[in-house]
């Protein structure tokens, strides 16, 4: 009698991971490691043993493709349903889409940039584990760029501001903020990238970017955005793991790595935090149905989780919380109000619209910011009186930009909303301006890199942006009438009233609001 051979036992997750990632790596025999991996030494980081890199997800290529396909299937079902049922009409208001315009212009192209650099890491990191994790993240980032563009393309059929995001990302002044942030990281070495994007952005700050956008979408009837956001965010938790693993790995490998990593952490916390000023104003001002203030989000996702959780963990390795984190905490009462006020005054040159918050919205802001909003409320009420007298204002001049974060210098001292913050440094006889101690600190460490920043205002003055007049520049930006300016009376607003049979539309029919027309000029 013969005994039938036992069916082969399924490998455990641990063994499968080992067989399908690390076992596919090999020792080179006829070229040196230095020749194969030329990029892992110039930053001064020392790695003794690449095999110590852990991937807690234990992800293998079969599991990766299976679950990513399932995520896409779920998303595309939602997109179809929303488009077929004219879902855009059930948004809270057309002005909600300003948040999404900012998203497709500022974030989607940087997902693509992230994919490029993770492809580079998937080639250049020396360990089989981190190379495979970088490959997965590279594919994720490409998926994010594609699903975001695909999701928001439905709104492009009906609303302004979506039609030319890629060109605008390369040219428009406020989009140089996210663009220069990512290009700073892209032009660094592989380890700085891992700390900049993998750790500081993905682990430390990404919750503040995605979760507010997506919960805001959920509260404002934007089911597709909520779904792509959560779909992308499910990959994000894997990216967070890679980032946390990266910092721990670098710190454990050699003590000499600690000060290098500390500087990158100081730098990229502040770079990321400044970038999030755009998210702060979105949360507090761009959502018609408010859900959470910037202050509350910052306390929840940064102060509680990171300051009280993560940094106590990293203290074990001799890492302290990032420099200037105290300024960020002080500013949480002010930053969104100041950022929106800047965008409000320059939205005639933007691919989104702005408006004075309604009285009801200001009441909500006052509940969220009882200490500080009364000051800003006076500003808005003054502006409302200007508008009532026919004078909605846009700034006609060009602002001084911060040399590092590239945001117009409209922020005040962290503890005094009446004193504008301005720092300056002289480097090789030239004067450079900064919005904050954090940005100045970065410049002083890397003046040769940041002196070459492509500052949109300087470029306009140098004649590199289509011509000397505002219409020349807006044309070069690829803006069309209705993309920017004041929301009330804009093309989007007019259409919204028409589609909803609002009597206000009939009244406005013969007298298009002056403020909207003003915006395109």
């Amino acid at each position, binding site marked *: 009698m013969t005994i039938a051979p036992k069916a082969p036992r399924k490998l455990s*997750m*641990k063994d499968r991971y080992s067989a399908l990632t690390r076992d596919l790596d090999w020792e080179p025999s006829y070229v040196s490691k230095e020749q194969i991996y030329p990029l892992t030494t110039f930053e001064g980081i020392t790695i003794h043993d690449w095999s110590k890199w852990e991937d807690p997800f234990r992800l293998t290529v079969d599991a990766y493709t299976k679950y990513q396909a399932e995520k896409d299937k779920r998303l595309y079902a939602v997109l179809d349903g929303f488009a077929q049922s004219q879902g855009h009409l059930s948004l809270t208001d057309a002005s909600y889409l300003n948040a999404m315009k900012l998203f497709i212009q500022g974030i989607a192209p940087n997902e693509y940039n992230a994919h490029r650099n993770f492809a580079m890491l998937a080639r250049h990191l020396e360990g089989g584990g981190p190379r495979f994790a970088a490959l997965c993240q590279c594919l994720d980032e490409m998926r994010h760029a594609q699903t975001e563009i695909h999701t928001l393309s439905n709104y492009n059929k009906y609303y302004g501001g979506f039609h030319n995001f890629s060109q605008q990302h390369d040219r428009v002044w406020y989009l140089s903020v996210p663009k220069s942030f990512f290009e700073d990281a892209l032009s660094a070495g592989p380890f700085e990238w891992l700390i900049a994007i993998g750790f500081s952005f993905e682990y430390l700050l990404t919750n503040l970017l995605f979760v507010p956008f997506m919960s805001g979408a959920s509260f404002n009837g934007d089911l597709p955005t909520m779904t792509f956001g959560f779909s992308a*965010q*499910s990959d*994000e938790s*894997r990216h967070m793991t890679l980032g946390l693993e990266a910092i721990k790995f670098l710190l454990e490998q050699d003590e000499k790595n600690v000060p290098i990593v500390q500087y990158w952490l100081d730098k990229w916390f502040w770079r990321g935090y400044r970038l999030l000023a755009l998210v702060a104003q979105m949360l507090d001002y761009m959502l018609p149905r408010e859900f959470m203030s910037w202050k509350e989000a910052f306390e929840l996702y940064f102060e509680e989780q990171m300051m009280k*959780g993560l940094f*106590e963990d990293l203290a074990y390795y001799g890492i302290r919380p990032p420099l200037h984190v105290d300024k960020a905490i002080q500013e949480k009462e002010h930053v969104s109000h100041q950022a929106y006020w800047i965008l409000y005054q320059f939205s005639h040159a933007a691919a989104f619209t702005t408006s004075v918050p309604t009285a009801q919205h200001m009441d909500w802001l006052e509940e969220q910011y009882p200490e500080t909003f009364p000051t800003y409320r006076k500003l808005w009420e003054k502006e409302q009186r200007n508008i009532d007298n026919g004078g909605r204002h846009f700034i006609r001049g060009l602002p001084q930009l911060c040399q590092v974060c590239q945001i117009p210098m409209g922020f005040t001292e962290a503890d005094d909303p009446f004193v504008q913050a301005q720092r300056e440094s002289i480097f090789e006889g030239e004067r450079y301006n900064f919005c904050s101690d954090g940005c100045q600190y970065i410049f002083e460490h890397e003046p040769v890199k940041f002196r070459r920043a492509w500052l949109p205002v300087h470029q306009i003055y140098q004649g590199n942006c289509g011509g000397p007049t505002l219409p020349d520049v807006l044309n070069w930006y690829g803006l069309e009438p209705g993309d920017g300016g004041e929301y009330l009376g804009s093309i989007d607003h007019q259409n919204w009233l028409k589609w909803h049979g609002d009597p206000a539309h009939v009244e406005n029919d013969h007298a298009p609001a002056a403020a909207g027309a003003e915006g395109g000029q």
Partner: protein
Amino acid sequence: MTATAERPVGVDIQENEQNRAVIEAIEADNEDATVRHMPGLVRVTSPGRLVINRTSVEERLGREWETHEFQLAIISYFGHIKEWDDDQILIAWDH
């Protein structure tokens, strides 16, 4: 400095029918867990550690569930993923 055993860790999970069993399993297996509902998501936090057991999820789901499936549910987390194997996912701080 707060002890590793007390500093909270947590996970954000998409709120939908499929994930209900996962959330219930986490609540059952982590007695100090706190659950907070936010638009579209559920946030579960727990002091020191948070564990997700395959068998607990399967009991509530009424079918086989592999821990990799948690990737479809998770939006974000804080803490460190200490263990992710066939039977269990464990989130805790290291130090």
